[in-house]
């Protein structure tokens, strides 16, 4: 079998069923119906009917073979279809319609009636003549060849009439097996492709941030990663990261190369699309380090932004401009893009062994405890009052109580912090963003 067009699947099945029927009935010969040297009472008509029924009984096995071949051919056509367009679903539709047009198979009574209807009048007579001749072997030798020839001719005619009936029966069995399956697969594919389309239409951009494991951890900008991936996968992505029109056929080819059932389940189809895109990107990023990523994308690292995010919280709240020390450990790789960029901001940046991890730290010097606590807008007195029940030793508690009393007696609150330290009260809570 080779179904080359799903719309003609039924015809191809019918042709194969006819060939199978011919093969099966071709085994019924005069010798098998009425053996020449048969010892005993010959019942050639009975033999014939038995052989024919056996042929019909074997129809299911033939149908199974044809179904398997048809299924393989249709799957091949479906794969071709998917390679061109993952949203296409004509193949299963057309094949299903075509297979549905095949005749229904015969049931047991139908087979009996069909055989009896085709046997007619002359074939039984020819059978009886040969049967009689067999029992009167010595006397009726004369005319034996003629009677056997007549039976042979009747038998051939019967087989010729029976072949299309058996072929239809086999085709019907194929229909029973395949038509419902193809319809179900077509309908499932319709649902899946609608879901896939909806998933694509409703997809939202994740933004430009790639988060890290926590608030002090982040990834490079998404656009940088995308552009680096685009360099590697120019077949799927434009240089600026936009997908090309080839991306859908590429996805179709991806699913066509695997289990077709994926495209017959909405969730599986959506998952397959996600996996395809992820694997395409992952393969493009394979072996790229943080440093190489920027080199490949031809984008400058976002060093100023990173350094800003690494700033120490206690920069604010200081009455004087604090000194700062920046430290950086930059992935040590072949390219100098990242380390050169970082060094324009942090000259002391050093290289680190980890390829994909840049670490930044800012230290700001220096503050008194009161300045740190004075960040609380409610004032130092409030803070001291809150913590007094929780101080870790009696001596410290006494000291803090005395301090609180001093602040209160001076009639100050948070701004008293600076007064107690001999500084102007500027820049404590007022400078907190």
């Amino acid at each position, binding site marked *: 079998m080779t179904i080359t067009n799903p719309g003609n699947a039924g015809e191809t099945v019918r042709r194969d069923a006819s060939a199978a029927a011919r093969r099966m009935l071709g085994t019924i010969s005069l010798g098998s119906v009425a053996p020449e040297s048969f010892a005993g009472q010959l019942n050639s008509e009975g033999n014939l009917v038995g052989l024919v029924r056996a042929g019909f009984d074997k129809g299911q096995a033939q149908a199974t073979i044809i179904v398997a071949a048809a299924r393989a051919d249709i799957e091949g056509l479906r794969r071709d279809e998917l390679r061109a*367009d993952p949203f296409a679903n004509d193949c299963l539709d057309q094949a299903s319609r075509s297979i549905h047009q095949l005749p229904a198979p015969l049931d047991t009574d139908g087979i009996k009636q069909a055989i009896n209807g085709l046997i007619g009048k002359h074939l039984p007579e020819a059978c009886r003549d040969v049967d009689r001749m067999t029992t009167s072997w010595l006397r009726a030798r004369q005319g034996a060849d003629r009677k056997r020839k007549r039976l042979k001719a009747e038998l051939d005619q019967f087989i010729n009439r029976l072949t299309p009936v058996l072929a239809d029966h086999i085709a019907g069995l194929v229909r029973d097996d395949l038509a419902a399956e193809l319809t179900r697969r077509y309908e499932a594919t319709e649902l899946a492709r609608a879901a896939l389309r909806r998933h694509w239409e409703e*997809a*939202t951009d*994740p933004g430009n941030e790639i988060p*890290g*494991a*926590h*608030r*002090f951890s982040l*990834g490079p900008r*998404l656009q940088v*990663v*995308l552009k680096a*991936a685009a360099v590697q996968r120019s077949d799927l992505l434009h240089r600026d990261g936009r997908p090309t029109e080839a*991306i*859908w056929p590429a996805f179709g080819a991806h699913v066509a190369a695997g289990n077709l059932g994926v495209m017959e389940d909405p969730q599986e189809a959506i998952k397959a699309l*996600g996996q395809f*895109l992820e694997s395409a*990107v992952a393969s493009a*990023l394979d072996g790229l380090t943080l440093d190489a990523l920027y080199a490949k994308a031809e984008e400058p690292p976002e060093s100023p932004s990173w350094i*800003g995010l690494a*700033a*120490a*919280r*206690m*920069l604010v709240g200081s009455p*004087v401009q604090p*000194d700062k*020390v920046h430290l950086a*450990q930059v992935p040590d790789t072949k390219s100098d893009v990242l380390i050169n960029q970082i060094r324009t901001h942090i000259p*002391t940046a050093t290289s*680190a*062994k980890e390829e*994909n*991890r*840049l*670490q*930044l*730290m*800012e*230290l*700001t*010097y*220096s*503050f008194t*405890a009161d*300045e*740190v*606590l004075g*960040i609380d*807008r409610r004032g130092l007195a409030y803070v001291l009052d809150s*913590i007094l029940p*929780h*101080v*870790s*030793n*009696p001596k*410290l508690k006494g*000291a*803090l109580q005395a301090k609180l009393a001093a602040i209160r007696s001076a009639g100050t609150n948070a701004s008293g912090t600076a007064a107690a330290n001999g500084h102007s009260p500027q820049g404590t809570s007022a400078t907190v963003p």
Partner: protein
Amino acid sequence: METANRPETMNHVIMVLGDTSIDAFESSGILEVNDNICTVLASTERATVEALDEPGGFRSRFPDRVWTVYLKPAPTDFAQVPQRMLPWLTPRQPSQRLRGGAEGALDRADAATRLLLSVEFSDALNRALIWAHSRRITGIHLAVGVIGFAVAGRMTGSGTLVAAVDILEERLLDFTGRADEVWIDLLIGAASIHQPAPREFEDAQIGSAALIAELGAALADSTLAGPSGLFGTHLGQILVLGPQEGGGILRDVREANASIQLALSAIVSGDSQRGREAYRPSANRTVNRRQPEAVFAGIGVLEVVFDPAVASQLVARRILATMPEPKKPVPESAANT
């Protein structure tokens, strides 16, 4: 910051105080990549220490440079306690006798009392200092570093920090004149002080504020900190960790853990020490034109991590959102014409 196979400048003893800090330290992986670090882990919860000590536990992975100390409950009366310590001890109230115990300290004062009375802690610290002084380093030697490490995630653990520094200073008397210079830094993962905290984080906020206030008071008068009266002798900076954006210092314990891991690994790197050397108050107490007790420093940390798996997922989502309308394939017959 990862420092394996890089020139070292210091050996470090890290005093890790309290369960939250132990959790952050243990999960940081810092011991794996830094051979120049040893640590003393102290907790008032017996189960925590037992877990560290069990076969296959954290201590068994680094048996020569990890010491664990269970800070057992203090006696209900201090009749057997040396007289000189009494002013820094807080007795438990009779009504609280059934609370605390092996499940942890009652409060910051109970934790500090347990630590001050812990001979095991003092011994462990001594062994760690010997280790740090005796280990040969691979780079140009600066000093021996001791880092007191506390996440003020809850009320109790951070209560031990002032007492621990006092004990440390007393132990260092044994090394005076016979060993390297020692720098003590304190690294604190503090809760938000700037704005009202969520209810579940109030303890941490109060604990953080209390710790900073205590350190400030101890710096102003070392005799308040503990029986040795030596608090601050070797003190470098008190590093308070936090991001720049408004809303406080650290939002929650998870954030404290994550950031303090980063900060700790940065601080122990040789390059970091060189960068910070000029700012050591012990070298010049009036650095930055501030008075001697201005030793609090802010730390901001950030890691930029390129994780191809995470990046692939997000880039795939961007691609999906920008994919063009699928084109219907041109039928062969039409293509031929």
